[in-house]
Every structure is written in structure tokens, then in C-alpha cells.
């Protein structure tokens, strides 16, 4: 077997299990593209539902599952039970139901195309119109004084005054599902003025693994295209950076996203250089890795702007204009390194 074909075999071995998983879980989609969710009627989670939730988390940035929109009654909740509104992203619904599993609540799931609350609200899919439509379909507007608790992050898409005009009394609920049980148990459903987005270690760690999965796919593609020229080190560098950047984010020196990425990339390059010189590693591969690390780190950092809830369009635009050319130039420099050195 030639060297290049053996590398292809290696790449296929890496891709194959993921491809099988992907196809298998796609097959589970039923009922107009929505997955069948047992826990919304039985409030009991099956092994497959946990597995699907884990898979949804691993592929967080790919909408793989959505829940059928509509009104659900947990634990045979009647019309006096609190009504919570959420998106139809599978993982969001799963995490919310896990939190409220033993309570009598009604759950209104809005068709957001499987997108999370904030993103779908920002792009107009999680809207007052969508909520009113489901309310009408489910006959909720026939009675008087319909109250519903909205996730606070839906308010960039939901115009409260439109709900009020339709006879609905909207209540601004917590930002996070974790706060919902305490909110419900308080007995008095009030607007959560004090709830704000927190981008703490837990939230960042939650995004680290999906970021690594996303970039693993990219770098594997690169690996296959370049016939594994640079060996396994670009794969390891990419996964290492994708895992560590979100977690270390506030502690990396820099003001914004890309400059922190550059700092991290340069630090990794210096470590590679030091290790390579000490170990007497091949010059060609060392140069490749030293250029590859900062380019990939900046790319991951820029990509992370979409994951974080703290990025601002104007700042990201400036950063993209300043740093994306750096990424492109560094990646272009890898070509002569591969060919000539």
C-alpha cells in the first residue's frame, strides 16, 4: 500500500464512525422532519432520548433535530398550570423538560426550525405571530386571561405589545432553563428584570466540545485533501485550540476575540518551536505547524464570535476585516512550505 492511500484509509477510518452515526440519527427523524419525543407525554427519558441529546450537543452548531411544535401538557397539567414558551430545538426542549419534569406545566413549542431561542428570535422566527398562531390552533385564546412565560432571550423577536393586543399576558421569564424550577416554585410569576446573560466558565465549557467537533471536521477535510502531508499534528493542534480557546477565553490577553486567538496561536507556535528544536524534529513540519497554529487559532477565535452571547456586530466586522486576511495569508504560506521546503 502506498503512503498516500494508507493516509486515505486512516482518514476514512476516522470519518466512518461519525458518518454512520450521522446517517443513523438522521433516520430517526420522523413526522414531518420532527423527532418523536416521548418525554413530553410521559415525562420519562429513554436511553435513546439521552443519546439524541448528547448527539445534539456534540453537533450543537448543526440543527440535527427539532421537536414537533404545539402545546404539551407535562404530568397531565390542566389549564391552570403555568404555560412556558420555548423553541423547538431538541436540546433546548430536552434540557428544559429535564428541569421541570416533575411539575405540572404546559409547554408551548414554537416552530423555530430547530434553532435555539436567541438565534431564532434574532432572525424573526420566534415571534409574537408564531406564538399567537399556536395559541389559536390550540384554542388557548378562547378563554380569558391567557398568561404565558417567555424566555427572556426571545424578546429580540417577540413584540410583547402584539401579544397583549391578542389578549395574552406575557411574562418575561428566566434566561436559563436552570432557573425555571426556582422561578415556578416561587409561586408568583413576575417579570425577571434581573436576569442577564452570563458567559461564565460553564457556558464556555458547554460550547468547547461542539467547537472541537466542528473544527475536527474541517481539519479532517484538510487532512484528506493534503493526503495527510502534515501528519496528525494539524489535527491535534486544531482540536487542542478549539477545546481550550472557549475555556480560557477571559484569561487570554487581548481585548476582543481575534487578538486573543492570535496571542494563543503564537504561544502554541512558540511551544511547538521549542519542542521541535529540542527534539530535533523535521524543519519542514516544524515550519508548517508554526504557521498553521496562529492561522487556525485566529480562525477559531473569529468563528467563536457566533457562539458567544457577547459579540457585537460592529466589533466583529472590524475584527474580521483586520484578522481574516491574516488567516488567509498564513494558510496560503502553507502551500509553498508543503511544495518547496
Amino acid at each position: 500500500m502506498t503512503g498516500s492511500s494508507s493516509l486515505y484509509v486512516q482518514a476514512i477510518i476516522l470519518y466512518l464512525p461519525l458518518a454512520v452515526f450521522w446517517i443513523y440519527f438522521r433516520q430517526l427523524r420522523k413526522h414531518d422532519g420532527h423527532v418523536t419525543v416521548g418525554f413530553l407525554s410521559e415525562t420519562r427519558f429513554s436511553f435513546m432520548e439521552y443519546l439524541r441529546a448528547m448527539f445534539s450537543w456534540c453537533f450543537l452548531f448543526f440543527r440535527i433535530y427539532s421537536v414537533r411544535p404545539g402545546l404539551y401538557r407535562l404530568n397531565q397539567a390542566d389549564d391552570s398550570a403555568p404555560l412556558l414558551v420555548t423553541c423547538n430545538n431538541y436540546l433546548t426542549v430536552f434540557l428544559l423538560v429535564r428541569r421541570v419534569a416533575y411539575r405540572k406545566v404546559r409547554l408551548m413549542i414554537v416552530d423555530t426550525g430547530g434553532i435555539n431561542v436567541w438565534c431564532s428570535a434574532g432572525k424573526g422566527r420566534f415571534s409574537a405571530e408564531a406564538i399567537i398562531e399556536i395559541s389559536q390552533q390550540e384554542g388557548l385564546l378562547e378563554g380569558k386571561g391567557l398568561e404565558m412565560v417567555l424566555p427572556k432571550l426571545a424578546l429580540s423577536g417577540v413584540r410583547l405589545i402584539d401579544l397583549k393586543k391578542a389578549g395574552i399576558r406575557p411574562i418575561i421569564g428566566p434566561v436559563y432553563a436552570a432557573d425555571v424550577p426556582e422561578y415556578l416554585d416561587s409561586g408568583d410569576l413576575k417579570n425577571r428584570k434581573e436576569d442577564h446573560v452570563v458567559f461564565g466558565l460553564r457556558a464556555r465549557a458547554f460550547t468547547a466540545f461542539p467547537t472541537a467537533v466542528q473544527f475536527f471536521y474541517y481539519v479532517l477535510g484538510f487532512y484528506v485533501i493534503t493526503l495527510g502531508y502534515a501528519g496528525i499534528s494539524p489535527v491535534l493542534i486544531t482540536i487542542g485550540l478549539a477545546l481550550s480557546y472557549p475555556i480560557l477565553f477571559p484569561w487570554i490577553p487581548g481585548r476582543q476575540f481575534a487578538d486573543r486567538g492570535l496571542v494563543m496561536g503564537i504561544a502554541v507556535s512558540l511551544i511547538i518551536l521549542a519542542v521541535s528544536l529540542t527534539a530535533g524534529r523535521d524543519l519542514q513540519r516544524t515550519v508548517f505547524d508554526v504557521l498553521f497554529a496562529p492561522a487556525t487559532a485566529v480562525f477559531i477565535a473569529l468563528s467563536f464570535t457566533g457562539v458567544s452571547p457577547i459579540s457585537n456586530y460592529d466589533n466583529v466586522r472590524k475584527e474580521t476585516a483586520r484578522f481574516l486576511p491574516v488567516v488567509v495569508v498564513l494558510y496560503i504560506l502553507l502551500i509553498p512550505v508543503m511544495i518547496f521546503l
Partner: protein
Amino acid sequence: MITVDQKKCTGCGQCEIVCPHGIMKVSDGTAFVLDDDRCVTCGACGLNCPADAILVKQQTGCLVTIIKEDILKMKCDGQSCGNSNSDGQACG
């Protein structure tokens, strides 16, 4: 960028309640932005201002959006954060 029309603002405090980052404040009967840099221009305040006093262009601070909408000039179809591909890759 977010601007508050001080003449229209009634100081009702709705913007303060809906802001997910807690950067809108009402003082002396009028709303103001505490920290422009922390505003992610999600648009919740502008959308829910009963006096129509807040002007904010709703934008997504995301690389994918900027590449698609600004560089490639592709129109976002609202399928996700600036992403309209069939894979439905979403950011944020």
C-alpha cells in the same frame, strides 16, 4: 449602534426589563445606554419600546453572518444566524 430619542422616551423602564445584558438603565425619567460596547444589538429594547423611542439596528455579531451578508452579499433568509445553507449550520 443604539440611540434613545430622549424626547419620545417616557421612562417606562420596559427596555431595562427586556435587555438581556442589563445595559439599559432609566434615570431621571429617561432611558440611556450604560455601555455601548456591551450592547450586542439584539434589538429587544427597540422592538419592545412602547414609545418607539429606541432606534437599534438588529445585527448579529458572528463571523458567518459577516462573511455571508457583508462579504458575499448573500441575503439571510432567517433560517439561522445569517446562515441559509441546507445543512442549517447555526451559530450562537
